[in-house]
């Protein structure tokens, strides 16, 4: 008796949920860059809260998938983590955030600035001791990011390197692990997202960020345009946009959306 009551009850419950939800739901599909996906998912949650009749589905697959899906009409918005190229054709890209990376050293290292060329030589393994750059007599320990991480992709793109060019001694996953690794190794050099670098440089931590070509990596420097190791993260849209998609783009660029961008450690526009 009891069991059948349960079954009947749950059937009625699910049925009513289904029918009420089906009434006026607008579905938006977003696909593309895995760098942007966590941010867009968060913004989507906030947007759904404000607009009960819109449901967003965020899928990853890389920037190029985001673009090709967009052209084929498979998504409503694409997510890309690189600037548009001329050959991308007639698509509209709206930047919603930026991300950048900063190079980090152990605090005991006396060096505080590198040129881009020095960075390339260090990561290629051509500089084995910090002495060669006027630093302490200490072995260079190159800390690189694991395959597939967005920061690695940006680093390789910026310095025009292949993954196998980098002669790393240590590989790390997330930022926290990276900072701990650099902190425990006097000769270490690595890179993390600018926001994490700013957080870590405060207080009495064992790491410090270094200037690249004379520019100190801070959010302010990115906003002023003096630090260039950054890339735009954009939503792309092809053809005629659904009103809900237009609304989502506006929400992401609004102060409320940008606050989320900041809280998730991306750099706002």
């Amino acid at each position, binding site marked *: 008796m009891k069991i059948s009551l349960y079954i009947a009850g749950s059937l009625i419950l699910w049925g009513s949920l289904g029918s009420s939800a089906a009434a006026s739901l607008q579905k938006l599909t977003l696909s593309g860059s*895995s760098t942007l996906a966590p941010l867009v998912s968060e913004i989507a949650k906030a947007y759904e809260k404000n607009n009960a009749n819109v449901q967003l589905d965020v899928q*990853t*697959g*890389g920037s190029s998938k985001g673009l090709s899906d967009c052209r084929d009409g498979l998504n409503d918005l694409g997510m890309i983590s690189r600037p548009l190229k001329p050959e991308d054709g007639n698509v509209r890209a709206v930047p919603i955030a930026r991300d950048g990376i900063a190079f980090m050293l152990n605090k005991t290292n006396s060096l505080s600035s590198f040129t881009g060329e020095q960075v390339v030589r260090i990561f290629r393994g051509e500089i084995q001791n910090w002495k060669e750059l006027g630093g302490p007599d*200490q*072995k260079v*320990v190159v800390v690189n990011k*694991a*395959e*597939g*991480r*967005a920061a690695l992709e940006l680093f390789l793109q910026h310095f025009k390197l*292949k*993954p*196998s060019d980098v002669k*790393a*001694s*240590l*590989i*790390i*996953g997330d930022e926290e*692990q990276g900072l*701990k*690794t650099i*902190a*425990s*190794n*006097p*000769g*270490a050099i690595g890179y993390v997202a600018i926001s994490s670098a700013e957080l870590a440089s405060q207080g009495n931590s064992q790491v410090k960020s270094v200037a690249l070509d004379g520019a100190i990596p801070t959010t302010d420097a990115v906003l002023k345009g003096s630090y260039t190791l950054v890339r735009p993260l954009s939503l792309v849209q092809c053809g005629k946009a659904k009103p809900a998609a237009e609304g989502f783009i506006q929400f992401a660029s609004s102060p409320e959306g940008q606050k989320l961008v900041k809280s998730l450690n991306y750099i706002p526009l």
Partner: protein
Amino acid sequence: MKLGESRQPERKMRQNWRDRIFEFWIDLTRLLACGGILCIFVFLGKEALVFLKAPEASQSLFQLAWFPSENRFGIMAMVVGSVLVVGLSLLQAWPIARASAIYLGFFSSPRTSVWLLGSLQLMAAIPSVVVGLFGLSFLLPILAVYFPPAFGLLVASFVLSFVLLPSLIINVHAMLVIDTDPLLEVGKSLGISTPSLIRKVILPQRRRFLRRALILGAGRAFGETLAVLLVAGNNIQLPKGLFEPFRTLNATIALEMSYAQGLHRSALFFLGLCLLLLVCVLRFLAGRENA
């Protein structure tokens, strides 16, 4: 069904519904356990097949270089890394575990044994990542002064043996002390000293039980991901020394899964399958005599 027939006379005696439910429950759990393992194999195999069918896989599988974005998927360095770190950690943990278990079983007073076993159980409950963090923020900075960057086999195997030890001691102790009271009494009445009784009678008699405990430990060691990941350095290469970074199979899955797509992703599933096969090989190497 065969089992049911052989139990027939006993069954008639106490064939009430509680027993039936109990037996059904046992059968169900057995089915779930077997089915679960089968499902893991099928699922991993299905995902890994996509990778194995790709031409990139067969070209680079048995090489050392792992650069998924350049379509190079060499797994050998990671297999060697996994096997080496497990071997080294057991080399450190096993003698200690055996000695501690013998002490707990035959030499310490019952009161001390209870206390020590209790604290061991507490230690076994320490999350392994905490041990890894201890290695990362305490051991490594000290060693990095002398052997930069210090990440690598030695620290990783030490951390791993630390993770393994409590449960290993508890297991070995359990295998050693079951039903040894009569043996001890007979030995004493014959005037044999406890040490030689342990060396000549109990240890040889319990050899295959001990081996089972060792295999259990090794299986756990292969599965340990985070503690090793934190201190291994994770550079994919054949380690040439004790202070050379290396990467285990599970570390690659943990580091790359959240960002992997397409072929890279199925390659990671293939790594999972390799790990599973490694543990299966281990199980069969241990022999079947204790079945």
